[in-house]
């Protein structure tokens, strides 16, 4: 044994430093694979700095302290210090020593990182939070690699943390993001494994490689998407968590994998815009939903009359049955204006003014209900004739609005005479082709929100998503004296089925979350507009009662020619109308870090974690068998492996047992299944004789490593066969000898 010690002492110098360098190379390569999900490359230098400090600290500590484990401890300390210096220097003593407030800072950076990840689409901008997250992860992984490769002498296992790093982009994009980086990392990993010279374990290397490829390519594909449950607070459920639903609309839209939110059957000739709530007031610079106190008498069985609607306007009744699937929230998705709702199980009431239906006690998830609503069909003439409502409180321009907004509005509507013409002009301007729909640009350009501040950057870049179009049009309408508000709800969704009685079934997913402006016209009430290009459909108004039919396309495939009088401003250019049905995931620009990928990543991480002890145990066994075959103390290693396998399988195999005693014990263990273990019992006797002869016999040169290894393999197989499957599984997943090792109850041989 002392020669082992000597070998260790000797190798403490050069080879460990070499190994540290290889680990650094591999991790630096692996982390660069993240370039496919992150913008620019500054984050890489931060990550490299972190890992460089960690590995260097480990190498230096080992060089001077001559203890492997001290190197890993040094790496851990160095990692903590470098994170402090990089991200929380002002909270630390002398800028280095972390304090309590440093940890608080770390906590807030974590939160910021999560927030950034949730809000941004790909490639994401590496905010400070994300950079911290990367450095933190890299530091932890570097320490882990150092521990397994140098401290525990199992460099092959360094592939596991590497695999996790390499797998991240694959998870996000569900495909191998960067094969080149992957290959470079794999080469670096092979160097790590090869650098152990004769201790290469090809089987381990190959299996680790297979696991890596499986992890990176197959697992994300085969794992089912994690359903957005009502209680998870993710996806559509965000609406339940926040008071203001518009805040998280952007991130909800960026969910690359949409979930079924609800489905409905309607008698309407078109799909229904299902409204959750309306935002009509300002809290500072932010749109706020009107949330009046719910009155018990506002029963959904009889909802109040829609404000402003007079009997002169033609209305028709529409019946809609809604079944809510995964969507959660305290507002009920209903068409506007609704008159009656039946079938609800929870306690719901309608809000005065907005007619939104809300519950303070329950969520919409799982509700099934029928809504009776009105289809308000004013003619263009009636709209044109509507008088000014500029004295309405909802026509008040919010304070602090950049005058450029009003100026822009004025120039857009130049020439339009009536409020309606102005509104249509605004809508046409937004949908006309100058503006593009993108959930990504606002996030990367820093105006990912719904307040007043986002209007000017949005008008400049002409790129944004429904929130930007809706709020901007609403604010611009107010500058023109038209009362406006923003509705939040769902697009009509995808037509899936047409029944015999002409009822249509639509499915609405989380990607159909939408916001749109509503403008008020005297005598008619609130009228929906659709400024967002490629989403939903514009409201269409017949030029005179009975003159025009309302044939409105609901999606691209069913789109029919729409007859609209060309002489009126209503004849806005029609854009391909696909928004209601297009899944966001189809648009490459809207790919984001999906919640389910985190779930899959978590599952893989857990699987790897579960597999780790087994892999370590197998590595240890292979190393021993290699030594036995090489004739390095074959008796000692063979017997130790036999004893530890027996212990793993639940045999009380003690170190204080002589080979004779242990083999008697194991023979008794094999005895109950004589048929399957006959060979093992024979091999056990042979192995014992070989071991005794080698360990205690008269010294003479004789090589019997091969024979010993072969017999050992037979005995181990027999022992496993004699073990009940459950115990065998437990022994594989949590080998007791490994637990002992980790807990310091070393089963080291007596030297």
């Amino acid at each position, binding site marked *: *044994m*002392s*020669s*082992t010690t000597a070998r260790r002492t000797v190798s403490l110098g050069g080879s460990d430093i070499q190994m540290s360098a290889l680990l650094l190379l591999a991790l630096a390569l692996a982390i660069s694979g993240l370039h496919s999900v992150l913008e620019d490359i500054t984050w890489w230098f931060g990550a490299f700095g972190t890992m460089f400090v960690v590995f260097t600290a480990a190498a230096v500590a080992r060089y001077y302290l001559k203890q492997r484990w001290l190197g890993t401890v040094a790496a851990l300390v160095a990692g903590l210090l470098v994170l402090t210096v990089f991200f929380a220097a002002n909270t630390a003593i002398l800028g280095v020593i972390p304090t309590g407030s440093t940890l608080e800072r770390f906590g807030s950076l974590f939160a910021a990182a999560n927030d950034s990840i949730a809000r941004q689409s790909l490639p994401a901008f590496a905010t400070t939070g994300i950079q911290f997250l990367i450095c933190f992860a890299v530091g932890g992984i570097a320490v882990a690699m150092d521990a397994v490769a140098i401290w525990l002498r199992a460099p092959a296992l360094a592939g596991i943390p590497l695999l996790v790093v390499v797998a991240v982009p694959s998870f996000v994009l569900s495909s191998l993001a960067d094969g080149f980086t992957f290959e470079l990392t794999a080469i670096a990993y092979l160097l790590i494994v090869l650098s152990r010279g004769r201790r290469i374990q090809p089987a381990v290397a190959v299996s680790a490689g297979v696991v890596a490829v499986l992890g990176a390519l197959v697992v994300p594909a085969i794992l089912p998407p994690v359903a957005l449950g009502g209680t998870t607070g993710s996806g559509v459920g965000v609406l339940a968590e926040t008071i203001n639903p518009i805040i998280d609309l952007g991130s909800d839209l960026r969910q690359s994998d949409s979930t079924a939110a609800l489905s409905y059957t309607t008698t309407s000739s078109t799909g229904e815009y299902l409204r959750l709530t309306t935002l009509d007031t300002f809290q500072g610079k932010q749109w706020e939903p009107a949330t009046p106190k719910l009155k018990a008498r506002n029963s959904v069985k009889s909802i109040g009359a829609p404000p402003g609607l007079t009997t002169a306007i033609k209305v028709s009744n529409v019946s809609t049955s809604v079944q809510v699937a995964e969507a959660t929230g305290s507002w009920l998705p209903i068409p506007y204006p609704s008159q009656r709702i039946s079938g609800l199980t929870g306690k719901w009431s309608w809000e005065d003014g907005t007619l939104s239906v809300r519950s303070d006690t329950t969520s919409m998830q799982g509700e099934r209900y029928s809504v009776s609503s009105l289809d308000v069909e004013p003619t263009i003439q009636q709209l044109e004739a509507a008088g000014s409502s500029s004295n309405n409180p909802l026509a008040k321009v919010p304070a602090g609005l950049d005058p450029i907004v009003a100026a822009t509005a004025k120039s857009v509507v130049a020439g339009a005479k009536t409020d309606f013409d102005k509104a249509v002009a605004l809508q046409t301007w937004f949908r006309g082709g100058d503006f593009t729909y993108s959930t990504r640009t606002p996030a990367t350009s820093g105006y990912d929100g719904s307040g007043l501040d986002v209007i000017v950057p949005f008008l400049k870049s002409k790129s944004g998503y429904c929130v930007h179009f809706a709020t901007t049009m609403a604010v611009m309408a107010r500058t023109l004296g038209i009362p406006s508000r923003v509705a939040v709800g769902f697009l009509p969704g995808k037509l899936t089925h047409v029944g015999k009685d002409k009822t249509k079934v639509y499915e609405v997913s989380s990607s159909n979350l939408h916001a749109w402006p509503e403008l008020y016209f005297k005598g008619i009430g609130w009228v929906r507009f659709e400024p967002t290009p490629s989403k939903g459909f514009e409201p269409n108004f017949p030029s005179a009662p009975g003159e025009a039919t309302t044939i409105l396309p609901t999606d691209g495939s069913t789109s029919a020619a729409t007859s609209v009088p060309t002489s009126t401003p209503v004849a806005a250019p029609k854009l391909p109308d696909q928004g209601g049905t297009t899944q966001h995931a189809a648009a490459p620009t809207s790919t984001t870090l999906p919640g389910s990928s985190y779930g899959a990543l978590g599952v893989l991480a857990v699987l790897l974690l579960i597999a780790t002890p087994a892999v370590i145990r197998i590595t240890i066994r292979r190393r021993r068998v290699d030594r036995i075959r090489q004739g*390095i*103390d*074959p*008796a*000692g*290693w063979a*017997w*130790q492996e036999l004893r530890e396998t027996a212990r793993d399988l639940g045999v009380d195999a*003690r*170190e*204080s*047992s*002589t*080979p*004779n*005693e242990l083999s008697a014990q194991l023979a008794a263990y094999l005895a109950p299944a004589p048929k399957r273990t006959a060979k093992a019992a024979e091999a056990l006797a042979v192995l014992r004789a070989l*071991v*005794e*002869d*080698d*360990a*205690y*016999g*008269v*010294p003479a040169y004789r090589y019997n490593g091969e024979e010993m290894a072969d017999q050992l393999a037979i005995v181990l197989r027999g022992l496993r066969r004699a073990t009940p499957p459950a115990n065998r599984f437990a022994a594989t997943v949590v080998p007791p000898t490994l637990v002992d090792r980790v807990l310091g109850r070393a089963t080291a*041989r*007596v*030297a």
Partner: protein
Amino acid sequence: MNSFPAKFEPGHAEVSLPVADPMPIERFLELSAEIVSTIETVIDGKREAIQIALTVLLAEGHLLIEDVPGVGKTMLARALARSVDCSVSRIQFTPDLLPADITGVSVFNQSDREFEFKPGPVFANIVIGDEINRASPKTQSALLESMEERQVTVDGKTYLLANPFTVVATQNPIEMEGTYALPEAQRDRFMARISMGYPDPASEIEMLRTRATSSPLDALKPVIGATELRSMIATARAVYASPAVEQYAVAIAQATRRDSELRLGASPRATLQLLRAAKARAALDGREFVLPDDINALAITVLSHRLIPSGRVGVTVGGYSGETLAEIISRIVAETPVPLGARHGD
């Protein structure tokens, strides 16, 4: 009983021959099996005790047989002596026995007109000391010192004892009055201590039958002579003990010294004798090398009479409490890791 040489030359033991050559292991096994079966004809159902007695004989140690009267202590000693054709003497220890009664005296020879050494009973290959605890400590010491040094000094002259030389002493543990229990230092000189124990019913019935007509001891024929015994001893001595086994013996001895339940641990002599006995046992098992199992099997027999428990461990009978000490040793053995294959590392 074998006769003692009539005339004894001063300073010259009868058997101070050069070390004998080992014999082939097959012959060794054959002879040892014969000895055991011969002794078994007089001691029924005590194979284990016989095995240990033979082991001690072959390991050149001394044996202490301790048990209540009438279970065949003396019979075992005599049978063992009888099976080997060599000089045997028997000393019945009594309180008035003097050292000279053991070692021998110089008497004035009237005809030669000079002092002549009359060797005592200790000058024999196998010396049976019956009820050794009945003699005074002074007399005990005379025997025990000669056991260790394998020589006797009388009137300034040193006389070597026989080779091989084995003392088989018996002791009665329950008879307290008028006895002098062996002090620890002297117990240490015995390689092993065994108890006979009562025979099982079948053996006891068998014994009644065989003893009905005559003493079976008389029918006992020697299996080997002194020369062959020396050769067998040489064979046992030639058994290989690997460093791992040595480590193991030392580890057990060390553990007895550290154990909190023991006031006195095993002496280095104990370790030496443990290994020597293990070699003899290995040879009797037909092996050329010692296994840790040999050490385990002999640990209680070889160590228990040397250890002194601390505090109130068990009831002390005759100065030690065998059963409890056996438990302590079993525990120590069970806790001591067995070294394996250390040879390659060293």
